[in-house]
């Protein structure tokens, strides 16, 4: 215990602190609150305040200067506006809002300003970054080329995601959007990717649940959760994605001389999930309307496109000379009744490198993850897909498309010719192959073997409703009996190889698994 600490020592240390403390006159600029309400304060004075600067109210609350007008400044308040009254003094801080960054944040839950809210004590880090940061230019970038395995079969096969890509997850409420993102985070274990989950406008209970899930799968240790929940003030919900991105940039720019990193150091990789940007734009709409900015379509302000484009442009794959770091973004958008042509969805679709479209009809029919393979695309991920997956999944998209067409048609036809029937049967099995449970990301070997079995007809003799248990058996076999093969596969994936020997071995494994499974039925 601390019995050997003497009171004199405490005094001595404090005395030292006081001696070192030097305080001359402080000069600062002030203003006075003219009016306050709905989380917005109008401040008179603050003549030289910058847009985006933090200001401090006399009661200790902070705010963000958003509107600089001729005779007053519109300030968004980070907290309860009840504590602020007319005539209260407001001070400039001369700093743009910034958040702490670095390893100390991993495994933590913080608010939009980087303050810990998980009760695990203060965050000890010396690093910080401004929450708004200009995206890198063209010269510093490189096109996406390394895969970022999501661990979700359908995505890795049909809409692959590469490091530095921005892939939108879009769908109605309760269609498994969050689940896809969380599974992707879980799958980054041991892959050297730092993850950031930005929860905007969600219930606190949901955030707790996600933290629990991540912890259970050992994923919290490389993840930071930035939470601006439904009860937090609108400015916090608006800022949270920018704060999260600033934290991710810490890793990405480690090796970038242009952006404050050290030359010769390898840049880190980060994955950031914005869950969801619909709520963020709603928070921004609220702020803008209260600041009396003119409303446009759907009452969103004119610059709502820019709020998202400048955010998503910060996702980047840096060139070799800049350390080759990356930030991959998975923004989430919630649609109403599958309407992707509403204002915010079309905006974000146009900024991102592709979208994963989830449908409630599929979800309710038990096809989970409820990805609509026809409408989902990845515009750049193809270059980042592993060779094995590219070879195997080549025909999957076509097969699924044909199946969808036939399935619609066959509802009217009473009897079908054998060729059509065969194609339908295969399609049904492929749809089963696409199914995957929650929080069980799969390795490339598992995904490729299963899709190989499906597209090459090894599942034709297995009843449709048994395909899911076949999947389980195959995965089991791959991690026990054929462990050597899985390891070899992983090595080839790393070298971006897919040798003939490996294919032959895979065919044998699939064949024998199918045989043993069929006989056990």
């Amino acid at each position, binding site marked *: 215990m601390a019995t050997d600490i003497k009171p004199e020592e405490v005094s001595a240390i404090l005395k030292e*602190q*006081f001696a070192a*403390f030097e*305080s001359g*006159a*402080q*000069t*600062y*600029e*002030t*203003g*006075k609150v*003219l009016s306050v309400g709905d989380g917005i304060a109008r401040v*008179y*004075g*603050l*003549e*030289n305040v910058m847009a985006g600067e933090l200001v401090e109210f006399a009661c200790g609350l902070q705010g963000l200067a958003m509107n600089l007008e*001729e*005779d*007053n400044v519109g300030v968004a308040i980070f907290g309860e506006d009840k504590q602020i009254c007319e005539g209260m003094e407001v001070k400039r801080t001369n700093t743009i809002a910034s958040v702490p960054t670095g390893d100390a944040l991993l495994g933590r839950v913080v608010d939009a300003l980087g303050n810990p809210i998980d009760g695990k004590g203060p965050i000890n880090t010396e690093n910080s970054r401004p929450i708004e940061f200009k995206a890198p230019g063209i010269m510093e970038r490189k096109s996406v080329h390394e895969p970022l395995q999501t661990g979700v079969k359908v995505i890795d096969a049909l809409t692959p995601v590469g490091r530095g890509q921005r892939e939108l997850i879009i769908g109605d409420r309760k269609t498994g959007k969050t689940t896809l993102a969380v599974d992707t985070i879980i799958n980054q274990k041991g892959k050297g990717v730092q993850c950031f989950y930005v929860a905007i406008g969600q219930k606190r209970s949901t955030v707790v649940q996600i933290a629990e899930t991540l912890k259970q799968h050992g994923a919290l240790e490389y993840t930071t959760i930035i939470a601006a929940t439904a009860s937090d003030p609108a400015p916090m919900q608006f800022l949270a994605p920018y704060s999260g991105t600033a934290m991710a940039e810490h890793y990405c720019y480690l090796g970038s001389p242009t952006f404050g990193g050290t030359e010769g150091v390898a840049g880190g990789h980060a994955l950031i999930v914005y869950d969801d940007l619909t709520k963020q734009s709603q928070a921004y709409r609220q702020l803008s309307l209260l600041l009396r900015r003119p409303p446009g379509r759907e009452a969103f302000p004119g610059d709502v496109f820019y709020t998202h484009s400048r955010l998503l442009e910060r996702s980047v794959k840096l060139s070799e000379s800049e350390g080759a770091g990356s930030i991959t973004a998975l923004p989430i958008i919630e649609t109403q009744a599958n309407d992707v042509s509403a204002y915010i969805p079309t905006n974000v679709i146009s900024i991102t490198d592709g979208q994963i479209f989830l449908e409630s009809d599929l979800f309710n029919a038990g096809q989970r993850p409820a990805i609509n393979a026809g409408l989902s695309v990845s515009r750049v991920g193809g270059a980042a897909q592993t060779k094995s997956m590219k070879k195997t999944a080549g025909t999957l998209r076509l097969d699924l498309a044909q199946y969808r067409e036939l399935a619609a048609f066959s509802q009217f036809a009473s009897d079908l010719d054998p060729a059509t029937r065969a194609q339908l049967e295969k399609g049904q099995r492929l749809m089963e192959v696409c199914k995957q449970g929650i929080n069980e990301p799969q390795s490339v070997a598992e995904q490729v073997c299963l899709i190989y079995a499906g597209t090459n007809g090894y599942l034709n003799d297995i009843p449709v409703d048994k395909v899911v248990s076949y999947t389980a058996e195959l995965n089991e076999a791959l991690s026990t009996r054929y462990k050597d093969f899985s390891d070899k596969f992983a090595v080839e994936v790393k070298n971006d190889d897919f040798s003939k020997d490996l294919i032959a071995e895979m065919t044998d494994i699939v064949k024998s698994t199918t045989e043993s499974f069929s006989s056990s039925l």
Partner: protein
Amino acid sequence: MLTSKAAKRYAKAFFSLAQDKGKLDEVRADFNALAQLAAQSEELKSFLSSPLVAQDKRLELLKSLFEGKIGATAMSFITFLNEKDRTPVLAEVCEYFEVFCNEAANVQLVTITSAQELSSTQIKAIEVKLEAKLNKTIKASTEIDAALLGGFKIAIGDQVIDHSITAQLNSLKQSIVNA
């Protein structure tokens, strides 16, 4: 606090007109008296800003109140404001007028807040320092605020120079908390 844009415009116009007429000092004195009166009398304020009083009625009353007591130029300005239905901002116009006068004369108003009353030599010393620093004639007003504990605080417009004990204690606290 001066917030009305209209008041600023009128004050500016009156200021340059008074300057042209060479009546600046006279109007300034009248307007200062008016501003003081408005600050003291709630009744005058509500009368000036009430939309229920008709324009000609208001003119009559204004005349009976001020005619003869203030200069003809100031009176004509007030009549003009009445005609434009801008009497609610009359007090602010007067205050802005003073601001423009000070600006033209290169005078800077400062407020010195201290925990205890400062002696005139102390105030003079501060004024001299500020004059050298800002290159302006300083007109200081003083306030007492015991919460400062000691030292003083100078407000120059929005700019504050804080040399109070409270501020230093606060920053000491910050440096310990954040250490």
